[in-house]
Structures are given as C-alpha cells and as structure tokens.
C-alpha cells in the first residue's frame, strides 16, 4: 500500500516525468511482512572508537541469519553483495578526532547501500560523558545521523542508539527493529536504551504470544492498525472505542479475533470499568496502547473552553487516569507490562490552530518521561510514539495542497501509513524492548517539522 504519488512516481511513465521535472521521487518503502528475513541483504558493521558493541551486534545479526560483511575500504573494494544496512559502532569515542573513523567507514559503505537500506549508529550517551571532549564527540553523532537521514535516497533511513555501559543486553531488540521493515517510516531518530531484564530467546514470529493488549481508539485509522499488528504478533487485543463507534469496533475486533469494549474513556468511571473488565475477562493486562485522540482545531484566540477541555480530556487526562488506575489495581498490570502512549509531531513541533492538541500531545511526552523510572522499577516500560504525517481517513479529507505538502516535507518524501505507527508500537510492546523506557519515538520519515 502506498499513496497515489508514490505509486505514480514509481510507475514507468511516472519515473520519466518526475525525473525530468525534478520532482521528489518517493520510494516504495520496505515494510515488514511476516516470515520475511530481517534484512534482504548483508550488513556492513564497522567501528569508530573502541567499539565495545561489535561482538553483540554480530551475534544478533548472525542469529537472525544475516550475513555480516567487513567494512568497505575507501577505494570501494568490497567483499560481495551490496549491503542492506550499515551499522557503525561508535562507542568508546574519546574526542572529536575519533569521528574520522566514522567518516572513513560510513562514506564508502553508504555509497553502496541498497534501496530501503538502514544506517544505524551506536554510541554512548552524551549525558554520561566524563569530559567535554568525550561529550562533544558523542553529541556529534546526533548531527551526523540526522544529516545522513536527509542525504539518503530510495527509502533508506538513518537512526542512532545510545547504549550506556551495562545496557549491552538491551541492544538486541532495538537493533533488530531499526534494521527491519517494521521501522520503515522511522527516520532520523536517536534513542537511548537502558539496562533491563531482556529475554534470552525472544519469539520473533509471535513476539506478543499470550499477551493481552488494550488499544483505545481502535475502531478506525491508526488505532485499528495498531490492533491488527498487535494481533498479528500474537496478542489478544481488547479493542476499545466510544459506544458510538461500536459497529466499526466490532468489525476490527472480529477481524483479528479480539474483543470489543465500548467505553467512553473520558467518563468518570471509565478507568474503573476498564480495570474490572480486564480483571474479569483476562485477570490482567500486558500491553496498553493509549491511542484514542481527537482534534478540535481553532486558533487560540478563537478557541472556546469546550474545544480546549475535550481535547485535553481525551488526549491527556484519560491517558493519565487510566494508567494510574492500572498501576493502582493490584497485580493487574502484569510483570513486564508495556504502556505505549500516542503523542504527535504537533506535540513536538507545534502546529497552527492546534494549541489544545499540541499541548495535550506534548504533555504525553512529559508524562512518559516522568513515569519511566517507576515503570522500570516494576520491570515495565512506558513510551510515547509521535506520528508525523500519516495517511488516514482523516487526512484524506484535508485540502489537497495541505495534504500533499504535509506528506512530502520529510526525508522519505511521503506520508506514513497507519501500519508504520502500529509497527513501532508493537515493537515497543515486545519483551525484547525492555531496554527502551521513557522515550518518545517519532514515526515521521524524519519530518522537517520540529526536527
């Protein structure tokens, strides 16, 4: 599935026309298909600095059946196939001088990168640097990766993982995600992993098997996609939406073998009702996805209190109240629970006419950051996902110009699909994502807004 322009630009005639006119040529992204290998080709792994993660990375890739190539030399000599991904282990940088190694490795490797390729840089967290020079080198990775993301063509992405010492075991899950088709629309992101209890041999085919997952706002759009992907990955999904959307909700639930729960999450007794439902029907819950959200756009000066309050109630207060109720309900939130909160690009970049919406979505980011240590203490995680321009029924009704600009001003030159958001959420819900906590992952194709 792709948008009309992407389809057109990749058609025979479209290719000719877009090339001659110098129009953007959005690539067809490599997206996850159950059963497909992690990567369609080999990975080149290189280092800058001491590189303490090299062995871990190699082991993960070998386990996934991926061929690991030696670094490409500056003269372009290779040892075979074009790489599908380039991984730079930049841990152990001591100062900016060490970054030369990064350049030496990346330049020839990226040159040979296939379409929908992956560039992933692993580094130490700048905040934990022991000297200004070390901090400078580590922070430099930020600018490096973001710029690579903007230079890459043909649906390739660049992301970075900051891996503190002692958190090496947490790397496997995020590494696999960023190399896989699940991260197709995640670009230019820098995440920090932490030490956590990570399962030894995670189930790659059905990573959520046996889990109970709640998805709010599941009747349509991104919520329906989240429910579908969680179910595909093995979870039993409790699909929640307002009673008025119950018919669509039932369709979604029936399509994935889940259950439908009609609930207005802003009702005073909604948290309690959800808790009772989960306790009665499932005895507990493993994954909670706060996806329900509404917009009531108006310039701030014209915005009435109702617009402000209803958006806040649905987008932020309900997430807070329900999460708190789940935490308070004894034993309900199972060990290793995952809470994923849907934020928005607007919450990061702001958006004209969306003061209420952007405020609520920014609030979500603050909320997960604040809750993360408490969640970590019980072996759980809470993260936010901030979608960029995602093609849904809602965006289909936007004016053509707004929609086209919105979908093109990102490094991948196209809008994302609901499934892209869903894949990221499903990944954060996996046991293997235990080391990602309190983070906000943007699913925006490296949007220029708020970047």
């Amino acid at each position, binding site marked *: 599935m792709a948008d009309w322009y992407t389809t057109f630009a990749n058609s025979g005639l479209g290719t000719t026309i877009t090339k001659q006119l110098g129009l953007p040529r959005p690539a067809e992204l490599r997206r996850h298909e159950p059963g497909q290998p992690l990567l369609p080709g080999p990975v080149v792994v290189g280092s800058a600095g001491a590189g303490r993660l090299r062995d871990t990375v190699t082991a993960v890739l070998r386990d996934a059946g991926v061929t690991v190539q030696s670094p490409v030399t500056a003269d372009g000599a290779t040892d075979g196939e074009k790489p599908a991904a380039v991984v730079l282990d930049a841990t152990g940088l001591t100062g900016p001088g060490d970054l030369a190694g990064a350049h030496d490795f990346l330049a020839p490797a990226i040159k040979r990168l296939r379409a929908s390729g992956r560039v992933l840089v692993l580094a130490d967290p700048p905040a934990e640097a022991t000297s200004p020079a070390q901090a400078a080198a580590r922070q430099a990775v930020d600018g490096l990766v973001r710029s690579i993301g903007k230079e890459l063509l043909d649906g390739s992405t660049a992301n970075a993982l900051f891996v503190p010492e002692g958190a090496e075991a947490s790397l496997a899950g995020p590494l696999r995600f960023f190399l896989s088709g699940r991260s197709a629309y995640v670009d230019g992101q820098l995440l920090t992993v932490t030490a956590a209890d990570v399962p030894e041999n995670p189930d790659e085919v059905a990573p959520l098997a046996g889990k109970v997952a709640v998805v709010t706002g599941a009747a349509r759009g991104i919520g329906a996609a989240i429910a579908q992907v969680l179910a595909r990955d093995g979870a*039993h999904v409790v*699909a929640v939406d307002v*009673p*008025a*959307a*119950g*018919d669509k*909700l*039932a*369709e979604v*639930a*029936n399509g994935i*073998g*889940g*259950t*439908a*729960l*009609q*609930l*207005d999450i802003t*009702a005073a*007794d909604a948290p309690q*009702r959800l808790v009772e439902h989960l306790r*009665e*029907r*499932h*005895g507990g819950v493993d994954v909670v996805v706060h996806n329900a959200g509404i917009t009531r756009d108006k310039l701030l000066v014209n915005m009435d209190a109702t617009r402000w309050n209803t958006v806040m109630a649905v987008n932020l207060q309900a997430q807070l109240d329900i999460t708190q109720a789940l935490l308070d309900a004894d034993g309900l939130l199972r060990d290793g629970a995952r809470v994923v909160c849907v934020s928005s690009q607007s919450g990061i970049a702001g958006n004209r006419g969306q003061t209420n919406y952007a405020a609520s979505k920014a609030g979500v980011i603050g909320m997960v950051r604040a809750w993360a240590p408490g969640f970590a203490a019980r072996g759980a995680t809470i993260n936010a996902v901030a979608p960029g321009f995602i093609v849904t029924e809602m965006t289909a009704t936007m004016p053509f110009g707004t929609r086209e600009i919105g979908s093109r001003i990102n490094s991948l030159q196209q809008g994302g699909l609901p499934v892209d958001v869903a894949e990221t959420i499903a990944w954060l819900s996996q046991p293997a994502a235990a080391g990602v906590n309190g983070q906000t992952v943007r699913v925006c194709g490296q949007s220029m807004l708020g970047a």
Partner: protein
Amino acid sequence: MAESTTRRAAIVGGNRIPFARSGTAYAQASNQDMLTATLDGLVARFGLQGESVGEVVAGAVLKHARDFNLTREAVLGSKLAPTTPAYDVQQACGTGLEAAVLVANKIALGQIEAGIAGGVDTTSDAPLAVGDDLRRTLISLNSAKTVQDRLRALARIRPGMLAPEIPRNAEPRTGLAMGDHAAITAAEWGIGREEQDELAARSHQRMAAAYDRGFFDDLVTPFLGLARDNNLRPDSSVEKLAKLQPVFGTGEGATMTAGNSTPLTDGASAVLLASDEWARAKGLPVLAHLVDAQTAAVDYVHGGEGLLMAPVYAVPVLLARNGLTLQDFDFYEIHEAFASTVLATMKAWEDEAFCKGKLGLDAPLGAIDRARLNVNGSSLAAGHPFAATGGRIVASLAKMLHEAGPGKRGLISICAAGGQGVVAILES
C-alpha cells in the same frame, strides 16, 4: 427446576442493535441483516470469532418465506463458526425470552455448554403477500404441464387479484389490533390516561439516563449509523404526552395514545448463555442465572380474558414453584407493550377478587415496589421489535442484577400475541 439437580444456565451477556422506528434507519435492512449484525456484535464483545457454540436459537414474528431458516442463515453470515447449529422459534412477542429459555434448558440438561438466544423483527421490510386467489392461480400455472393448461391458468388472473395483501397487526381470530385489545383491558381495569402517560414518560427518562451513564455501552452495538434507539425521547414528559390524541379505544375509555403505546419498530437482540464452567474456562463473566420460567395462555377469544393478560396467570405458577412471593424481587421487568398493559397487570395482582376467582389464589399477590419496575426504561422508550424484546430485557436485567451484587433476583414478564405470556426469574 427449582428442586432438581440440573445446573442453572448462566447469562454471560448480550448485544443488540439500537432499535429504530419503522421505516427509519433500518428501512432497507432485512431481518437477516439485522440478526447477523447483532450476532457479530456479540461475537466481538465476547471474542467468539470462529467459535462453534452449542446452538443459536432466534426467530422473527414477521418473516418472509425466504427466511424459513433465518437464524441458521444469519449464523452462516456471521463470524461464528459455520459449524454452529441454529433453529428458529416464534412465540410472537415472547419469542426472544422463549428462545433464551430453550437455550437455558439445554444447558441445564447438559446437552450444550453454551448457546445464543435472540430475536429480530422488521416492520419496514415486512413480507407482502399476493392475494389468495392469485397465489393459487400462480401455483396452478407453475404446475401446469401443457401450454393449454397454462393459458387456462393465466386466463383466470383478474386485475383485482393483483393488489398485494399487507400484513395487519391484528389478531387473526378477533380481527382486532393488539391496541384495540389492550384498550378493552384498560377500560375493564379502569386504567386512566394520566397514569399511562406517567409510566411512558418515566420509561423514556430512565432509559435516557441509563444511556447517559453508559449502562448500554456493553449491551448495544451501533448499526447503520444509529447509536441509540431512535424512539427514545429524553425530554419526554407527562405534559407533552397529555397532548396526544387517543388512537385506541372509544369514548371515555380512549386513553391509549401513540405516546403510551409502543410504536412499530425494527431491531434485533441476542443473549449469550452458558454453563458456569464454560464461562469460567473462557474467562467470561456470569452476570446472572436463568432460574426458572413459565408460560401461560388465556382465552381472549371467547373466554373474556384480556389478550395481554397471560403473564398475570403465569407469574403465580412460577412463584409457587420457586417458593417465592411477588415481593421477593429486586427488579421487575414488565414488558411495556402498552403502558396500560403494565398497569393492568399490576392491578390484577393486587385485586383480591381476581386473584381468588381467576388465579385460584388464597390472597392477592399484592403490590410491587414501583421503584424497582423497569428501572432502565423499557419498550415504550426503546421501541418493540417483537421478537427482539425478550433478548433486550434478559441482557439488561442480567446486567442490573450483576451490578447490584450477588443474590439479587429479577422477574421478567412478557405478554405476547395470541393471548400468551412468558415469564422468568433471573438471579445473580
């Protein structure tokens, strides 16, 4: 049943589509469409996709000939496993409750572990029949073997035969509309206009309040753009209802209006029943148990009893068998076919001469606490798609009992065409 060793069937939950006044939201929907959507909503609520439950039992009062296997066809179109058996029942307005009793009995006997009981009706897509003469002529045309026979059959068709027969909401043996019958009963029991309007207004207000507090969130699934019963008038009041002209009865006895009588309605409902073990194994709740049920019929044709008075006779039998009095209930669900029916029913139970003379009791059954009657509204507010009403009431009452806590008891009383009544006891 009360003393036997059989197990009691559990009511796990229910689903219905919002009820729509005839010719409105569901004007284009067939019984099969509505029943299928209702089953799918139930499947979604309880995660029964691809499951084969023991049996699905449902029915419709107004049925097309093509709907001879309505419930099975709906099952085949639903998300239930295609290996789920189904059959149709029809006991007029008692269909839905009777279906639940049938399913419950099979569960009680251990013949099935779980089953779905339901009902559906449309007055918008009611079957039109060709007249008897044309029908017979067409049948003989169809069976004619020679061209000559066919021509002879065709020659018998007269223009007058071509007018379709529209089904009338009238008792075949009396030729009276149900409302006319109810009006006779209302006059006999001296049921006044004002008390009928009060009951109707209360039904609307209570149901609107129940919707507002989310009571129906897990009982109703929207269908064709309708999320609430479109007969529901939250702002209904005695003053507004008092302005309506009577439509049934004559002279002083003309107290029944479109406001205190149920309108023709389209809709469907379904209830999931199961053994406790089945529910437990599936992690599904047990809202209540169906304890016992009773049906009765009265001779409304030549016997002088009111058409809708059969539940009045059924209840004392049920009470006696279960060692209960009429006051031993926390909730009463008396189907509001007409406001006057509910009032006449209660008046009869309070009437010493009637209870002794007609019901053969030593003393009147007595009054019931009106505060416990139809507490979340009933058919006057929701509307009354004949066969769907039983399922609506069973699911709603089971939920009320569950919310009230263990050991609570509810009584259902449903009157039906043909002078019949189906009553049942539910207990949490």
